[in-house]
């Protein structure tokens, strides 16, 4: 069983490596952020699989940390720059309640 779980973790890590291509090539910031998001999810899956493969239950906590904080970078990115440096106007389309 341990062998299979490690193999699955290795496979997901391979997928993660492919996903890194999107992170490094972009083109847009949104694309890079998406790839980082996938990296976080894959990382959590890998932690869980390794946790069972090497019987180290504390690794589940690492997966929990990654899962909990996964969305924070995207949330930060969604904020308007908050400074004249970016020169970005507020979004023209108003939110309808």
């Amino acid at each position, binding site marked *: 069983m341990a062998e299979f779980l490690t193999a*699955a973790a290795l496979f997901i890590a391979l997928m993660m490596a492919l996903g890194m291509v999107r992170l490094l090539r972009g083109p847009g910031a949104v694309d890079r952020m998406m790839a980082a998001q996938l990296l976080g999810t894959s990382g959590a*899956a890998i932690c869980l699989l390794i946790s069972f493969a090497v019987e180290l239950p504390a690794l589940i906590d690492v997966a*929990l940390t990654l*899962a909990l904080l996964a969305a924070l970078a*995207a949330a930060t990115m969604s904020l308007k720059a908050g400074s004249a440096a970016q020169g970005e106007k507020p979004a023209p389309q108003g939110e309808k309640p």
Partner: protein
Amino acid sequence: MSLGLNIFTVLMVSAGAFFFLAGTVGLLRFPDPLTRLHALTKADNLGLGLVILGLLPQTVSLLGGLKLVLVWVLVQIGSSAASQLLARLALRRP
């Protein structure tokens, strides 16, 4: 019994790994940010969900099982919100 559970684990983890493959291929091959986002959510939802479902029979403690499910719940919350936010960003600056 144990064999049956092991087979379940193998099947579910493999299916989960397949969705990671699908999500990654989509992220690489789809033409624009919004479709890529669609592919990404498959890996987040189904990939991780199936991996966790497959690992559940292997847990030894109740707390461990709860934490596994919690990982999935947190990723669901995070990824749904993040996809929304990223989609808005993708629309604003194409």
